[in-house]
């Protein structure tokens, strides 16, 4: 069957589709306002509903897969332990990896941050006269602002992952680390491809759209001067690395051109090839609820006549390794399970986080890059804890979210109104008399104030909810005084209030 044939059902004219919500980016030096962007996302109900449904489906499939494996929870513990061991001995394993990679004929570079990463690769490209590059998906390269840098120096980067390509053509960041355009509906993609690739704007059939992209991108792949990949794992004992994809695009990127450059975060190390037997079983089941990725490719050295470079990138990882409460976030294998299970992420869309990483993982990673800019993010959580339970490497994500709140509060990153409001609450709640007076005042206000005085823009609770009604016969405290203290006449406490 030719995937490019239009599906007649999908080409039927519909009412004008809902436009895609596009949250504004926070200006330099400003805090990302997650709540505001989330509101904007929810104001596009078709997108919001579709996003929640689609992302929840990944969580459900993950549960089904995980529950078929009797030793699932032991596997998670094993993976977590391997990562603890590796991160504890990271210097040793990095040196071992470097030595073995070099012995395999790989050029190894070290980059302390995103800028150095971009510069190193730019130099490699200059040495080879590279003008066009095909690239597989890499969150690390997103962190480094790699594509943006290459735009600036006139080197063309073509994303080969379909989802990432959609986001590139749209000039948008990925909203999900595994499914970059998951916030878009097919109609959005149809319009985008019509604009950028000349496809039929009325045809939003997924096969048609994928075919249109493939037709447009394949020639670019064949002509590219260099290929880039990230890595899911780097194996110290072999000096090789492993890339997992579902589209085979990493294999195209790595194998078609003669020059392959891989960017690898230093936390991606595992000691042995046999450790893959643990991580590969967990990765795709956690991510998409599929038993394994379609392609799990082990790269160990340059192809015949080719050249391979590996750039090992720190970009804040060493600093994070030294953070007592937060170092274990380095165990993350970027599966996205925490995003899929997160009820806040599903309702607000990934772009509302205004950062490289969205969802629970983003709440604990982004503040390590810029505490003030991302100081609202750890509050974009109900602390429900399901992220921790789905994490294949057992990162205590919700406890770290809680921990970040304390760090941000202690370092003056809380909005002034919040800080002073909570300080006032703390004073009232520390005083039995003040507390009783406050309850009396609240209940009296709720009982006697007119509706407009309670439900207005100062009352965030009342925007979408009714306030609780004050009880007819007073508080529990009042009831206890009436019904218990006078009954037997002897309580260990003297009511003073």
């Amino acid at each position, binding site marked *: 069957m030719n995937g490019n044939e239009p599906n007649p059902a999908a080409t039927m004219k519909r009412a004008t589709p809902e436009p895609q919500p596009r949250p504004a980016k926070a200006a330099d030096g400003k805090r990302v306002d997650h709540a505001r962007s989330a509101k904007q996302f929810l104001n596009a109900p078709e997108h919001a509903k579709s996003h929640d449904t689609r992302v929840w489906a990944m*969580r459900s499939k993950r549960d089904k897969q995980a529950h078929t494996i009797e030793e699932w929870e032991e596997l998670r513990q094993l993976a977590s332990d391997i990562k603890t061991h590796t991160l504890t001995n990271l210097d040793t394993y990095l040196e071992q990896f470097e030595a073995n990679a070099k012995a395999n004929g790989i050029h190894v570079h070290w980059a302390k941050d995103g800028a150095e990463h971009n510069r190193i690769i730019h130099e490699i490209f200059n040495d080879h006269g590279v003008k066009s590059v095909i690239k597989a998906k890499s969150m690390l390269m997103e962190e480094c602002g790699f594509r943006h840098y290459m735009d600036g120096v006139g080197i063309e980067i073509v994303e080969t992952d379909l989802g990432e390509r959609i986001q590139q053509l749209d000039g948008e960041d990925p909203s999900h680390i595994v499914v970059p355009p998951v916030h878009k509906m097919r109609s959005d993609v149809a319009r985008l491809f019509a604009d950028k690739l000349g496809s039929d704007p009325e045809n939003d059939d997924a096969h048609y759209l994928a075919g249109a992209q493939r037709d447009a991108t394949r020639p670019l792949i064949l002509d590219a001067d260099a290929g880039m990949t990230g890595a899911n794992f780097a194996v110290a004992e072999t000096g090789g690395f492993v890339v997992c994809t579902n589209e085979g695009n990493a294999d195209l990127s790595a194998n078609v051109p003669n020059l392959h450059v891989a960017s690898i975060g230093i936390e991606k190390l595992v000691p042995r090839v046999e450790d893959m037997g643990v991580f590969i079983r967990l990765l795709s089941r956690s991510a998409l609820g599929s038993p394994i990725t379609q392609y799990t490719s082990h790269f160990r050295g340059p192809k015949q006549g080719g050249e391979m470079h590996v750039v090992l990138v720190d970009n804040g990882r060493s600093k994070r390794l030294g953070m007592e409460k937060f170092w274990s976030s380095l165990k993350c294998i970027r599966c996205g399970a925490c995003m899929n299970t997160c009820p806040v992420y599903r309702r607000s869309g990934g772009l509302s986080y205004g950062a490289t990483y969205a969802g629970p993982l983003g709440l604990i990673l982004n503040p390590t890059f810029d505490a003030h800019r991302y100081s609202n993010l750890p509050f974009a959580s*109900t602390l429900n804890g399901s992220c921790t339970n789905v994490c294949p490497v057992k990162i205590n994500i919700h406890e770290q979210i809680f921990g970040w*709140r304390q760090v941000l509060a202690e370092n003056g990153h809380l909005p002034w109104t919040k800080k002073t409001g909570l300080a006032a*609450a703390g004073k009232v709640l520390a005083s039995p008399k003040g507390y009783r007076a406050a309850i009396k005042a609240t209940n009296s206000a709720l009982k006697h104030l007119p509706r407009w005085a309670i439900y207005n823009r100062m009352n965030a609770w009342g925007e*979408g909810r009714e306030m609780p009604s004050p009880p007819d016969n007073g508080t*529990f405290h009042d009831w206890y005084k009436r019904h218990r203290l006078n009954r037997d006449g002897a309580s260990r406490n*003297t009511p003073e209030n």
Partner: protein
Amino acid sequence: MQIGLFVPCFIDAFYPGVGIATLELLERFDCNVDYPFDQTCCGQPMVNSGCHDEARATEALFVKNFAKYDLIVAPSGSCVHQIRDNLTAVEQTPEVKHVRENTLELVEFLHDVLKVDAFPWARFEHRVGYHDSCNTLRNLGHGKPSELHGEYFSKPRALLEKVAGIELVSIDRPDECCGFGGTFSVTEPEVSTQMGQDKIADHGRNGAEYIVSADSSCLMHQSGCAARIGAPIRFKHIAEILNGASQ
């Protein structure tokens, strides 16, 4: 054994019936229960916002009020989680440790300590959707969350199943958070409300007449959402049903 009853601030103010049901229920089982009169709050609103310094005096007052009891019981999962796991702003004296180690949520107390096997006075002839609050489920271990692999169990459902006439319904997303989240409910009102409405809708389409939970804070949020859109679903704390409420 002397039990100190902790009635959290919003239950005291808005849901006295939950406090009364808890006390009466404990008395039905011949527990020796006392309600310390100077109690206020466990400190959770401040602590969950990262403001531990601001919570210190409230935490100290809590310990002062409750240190004299053998056990402290509260009908609120999130408050018990705060006391047990996060009451750390005050110096960790033996008194503080005693309070933290001996505070139990009502369902835990009934299920694990009293090991109640019958509620002869209780009859609730309605279809009930049970709401596992995230704190009771994942922090206190009321049951097996759907995302974890393992043997199913649910302490609150095991208790409710002993109530005559009750019909428990299951919902599509059994332990999805309802969106309350403490201050989250006012700092992210739109997401919070959307989650609340989705939660109510899930219960509604699966036939629940009542949503029942061990956390009144979740119910306060959900009932506020339901009232705004006029959803005909009703809300009860588990203590009220176990104590014999009929509607």
